[in-house]
């Protein structure tokens, strides 16, 4: 499944908790909201299942380009900290705590993951400062925590990958 969601579809989404930055953040307008679901295939413990909020724009005339800021929300059963591996060893990340929940900083601070409730919120950005600032402004799409509020603690097993999920 690859689909662009309307705002009404985002508002009605009930498969897992969603967090975003609103229609605009730091001068970056919401470009699109993308739903991606892929089956789990052999050799991969968990397939993709995410809602991606893309902020800002970039020039893709000469090949692909990243958005200045992106928020991806995954069920914790599909994306969790223990999933990472690099060359048979632990994948390097900086462990920290943000908004009252465990978080992990990757790739020189340009990727930040927050583990809250039964979801993993992943932020990609064009610099560590924007990513950290965005993390402080995450809020629920419908209700839930507002910007700056503490986030719900992760459910048991959310970081370790011991949650079972159904679906494809």
């Amino acid at each position, binding site marked *: 499944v690859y689909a662009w969601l309307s705002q009404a579809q985002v508002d009605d989404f009930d498969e897992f908790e969603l967090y975003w930055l609103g229609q605009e953040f730091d001068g970056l307008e919401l470009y699109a909201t993308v739903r991606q679901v892929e089956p789990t295939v052999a*050799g991969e413990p968990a397939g993709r299942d995410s809602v991606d909020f893309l902020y800002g724009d970039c020039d893709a005339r000469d090949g692909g380009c990243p958005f*200045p800021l992106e928020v991806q929300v995954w069920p914790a059963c599909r994306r969790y900290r223990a999933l990472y591996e690099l060359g048979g060893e632990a994948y390097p990340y900086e462990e920290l705590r943000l908004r009252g929940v465990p978080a992990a900083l990757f790739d020189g601070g340009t990727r930040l993951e927050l583990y809250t409730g039964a979801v993993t919120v992943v932020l990609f950005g064009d610099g560590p400062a924007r990513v950290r600032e965005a993390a402080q402004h995450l809020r629920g799409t419908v209700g839930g925590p507002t910007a700056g509020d503490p986030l719900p603690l992760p459910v048991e097993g959310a970081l370790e990958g011991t949650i079972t999920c159904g679906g494809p």
Partner: protein
Amino acid sequence: MAVALTAGHWLLAEPATAHFSAGHYTYSGSCTEANRVDPVTVVLYGSATGARVLNHVQHHGGWTHQSGSPQNFLTHGQCYAMSGQRANDDGLSSRWHVRVRTTYHGDDTWGTTAMGSPHRDELVWCIHAVPPNGFNAGRTQIVNMLSPSPHHTYSHNAYWGNTQSMKQCTGSTAASNGYVAWISMPAWDH
């Protein structure tokens, strides 16, 4: 000189104490976040010089075309030009396409390593765009191309989480599911 590893692989020796270091994307220019283009989704190990990987991709897959824009890879914290690229058709066709770069140095466990960014190029009004699942499909193509050969061994898929969405010239997006396939490369060319 060769060294025996516990995994049973025989590898050409690289300078000792080296460690695997590979960036997670290719870059259109300097290796800054804004210049990311494609995710890295395959690692070749054993005796994987860039030239050898290209040689085997060309032999096993028939990917002989070399057209495509140059891109850079990040390894050992430095930005380097790709070793090369191969595709199964020319630049004005839909095709499978991979860019490859040897990592800065070998690894004590994995030997000489290289990284690649295989993907599907669909011919569209603005020339080429990667479809939404085109990075995952590219990785599968490389695995299916090399792993049936007795001198290549598919090791595993490792999770790197490089799932960032990449805008395409059509305005649509493509993204990897974050997995990287590890495949061995023998110490000889075809």
